[in-house]
C-alpha cells in the first residue's frame, strides 16, 4: 500500500476516477446549455419562458450531480438521501404557497413605512 505507483491496479474498491474526456464533455454541455438559456431568454416566449429556463437549469444540475459529483458511481443510499431533500423543499414551498395566496390583500393594504409619496400628475 505504501508505494506511490499510479497504476489503476492499486485503486481500492471505493476509488472510481471519472474519465477525463467525460468530464470535459460535461463541461462543454453545461456551457452550451448556459448559452441556450440566454438565447431563449431573449426570445418572446410568454408563459413558457420560466418553465424552459427551469428545465434547462435542471438539466445542468443533473449533469453536475451525475458526473462532477460522481453520483453516477456513488452508493444509491447517498443519492437517495440527497435527492429526498428536494422532496422536503417541495413540501415546504408547496404548503406555504397553498396558504399565503389567500391573505395577500391584507398584506398589500397594510400601511407602509415610509409613507409612499403620493404621485401627482402635474410637473
Amino acid at each position, binding site marked *: 500500500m505504501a508505494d506511490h505507483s499510479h497504476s489503476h491496479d492499486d485503486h481500492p474498491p471505493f476509488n472510481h476516477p471519472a474519465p*477525463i474526456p467525460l468530464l470535459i464533455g*460535461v463541461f462543454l454541455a453545461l456551457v452550451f446549455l448556459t448559452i441556450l*438559456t440566454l438565447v431563449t431568454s431573449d426570445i418572446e416566449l410568454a408563459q413558457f419562458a420560466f418553465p424552459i429556463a427551469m428545465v434547462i437549469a435542471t438539466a445542468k444540475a443533473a449533469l453536475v450531480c451525475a458526473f462532477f459529483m460522481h453520483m453516477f458511481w456513488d452508493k444509491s443510499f447517498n443519492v437517495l438521501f*440527497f435527492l429526498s431533500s428536494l422532496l422536503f423543499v417541495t413540501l415546504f414551498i408547496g404548503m406555504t404557497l397553498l396558504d399565503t395566496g389567500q391573505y395577500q390583500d391584507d398584506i398589500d393594504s397594510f400601511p407602509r413605512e415610509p409613507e*409612499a409619496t403620493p404621485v401627482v400628475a402635474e410637473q
Partner: protein
Amino acid sequence: MAVVDTDNILEEEHHHHEPFIAHHFDDAEQQFDSGKLGIWLFLVTEILFFSGLFVAYTLYRIHHPEIFEQAHHFLDKRLGALNTIVLLFSSLTMALGVHAAQNGDNKKCGLYVLITMVCAAMFLGVKAIEYSHKWDLGIFVRSEFSYHPHTAEPFHVSPYLIKLSVIPVLLLVGFIAASFFARASSKVALSKFMGGLAITVGGYFVGVLIGMTFMALTAENEHAQLESPSQAPLVLRALTLDDDKHDDGHADADGDAHADGDHSHADGEDHAHGDSHAKSPDLGRDVGIFFSIYYCMTGLHAIHIIAGIVALAWIYWRCLVVHWRPDYFGPVDYVGLYWHLVDLIWIYLFPLLYLID
C-alpha cells in the same frame, strides 16, 4: 448465535493502522464511506438552508410578478452569464483535481485546485462590480431602496467598490509578503502555499477588471435608456420623478406616460382592478423586496464561495505536502462535492434572478 472464538476475544494491543486512518475506524474504506455519507448529509442541510430563501422568492414572484418584471431591468444578464461560466469552469477543474487526487498525483491536484480557487475569487470580483454598481444607484434592500439614476456615469470607480476591495488588497499584500518570508527561511511548501493564495486573491482583481470592462461596454446603452425615460421601466420613472420633487428638476422625466399609470391611486380608486403595473403606489419601493431577496440569496451564496475558498486552500496545502494517495483522497472528494453544490445553487440562481421576462 454464531460460534464465538473466545480464545482470541481480546483486542490486540497494537492495532496496526495506516497513519491516515483515524484510530476509531477499522480501515480506509470505512473511513471513506463515513466521510462521504457525512458530506452528502451536510449538502442536504445546505439545500434546506437555502430552501428558506427559495420559498421567499417563489412566494413573492407568484404573488407580485409585477415587482419581478420591474426589477430585472437592474440586473445585467451578461455579467450573470459570465459568472455562470466561471463557476462551471471551476467545477470542471475541481472534478479534474479530484481525479488527480484519486490517482495520487498531488502536483496536478494542486494545480487544478489552485485554478478552482482563482475562479472562485474571480466570481467574487464580478459580484463586487455588480453590487457596487447597484449601491451607486441606490438599489438596496426594501427599507433603503431609493433609485437615483443621475449617479450612473459611464466610467467611474464606485466608492463602494473601493470599500469592498480593501480586504482583498490587504490579503494580497500579506500573502505576497508571507510567500517571500517563507522562501527566505527556505520553507518551500509554505512559500508556494502563500504564493497560491496571492494568485487566488489576484483572481478577484481579474474579476473586477472583467466586470468593469463589461460595465463600460454596456454603459452607453444604459445611459441612452436614462436619456429617454419613456423607454425606461415604470419603476425607474416613478422613482426618478419622486426624486425630482425633492431636488428640483433633475433628468427630465416624461410625465405623461407615467401619470396615466399612477393617477388612479392618487384618487384612491380600487387598486385591484387597475393595471397590473400600477397595483400599488408602493410599487417603486416594493421592488426593493426583490433586491432584499436578491441580496440574501447572492450574499449567502457568496459567503459559501468564501468558505469554499478556505476549504480549497486547506486541500491545496495538503497537495503541497503530498498527502493524497489512491487509498486516501477523501477530503478532496468531500470539498469537491461541496464546491459542486455551490455551483448547483448558482445554476438555479442565475435564471431565477437574471433571466426574468
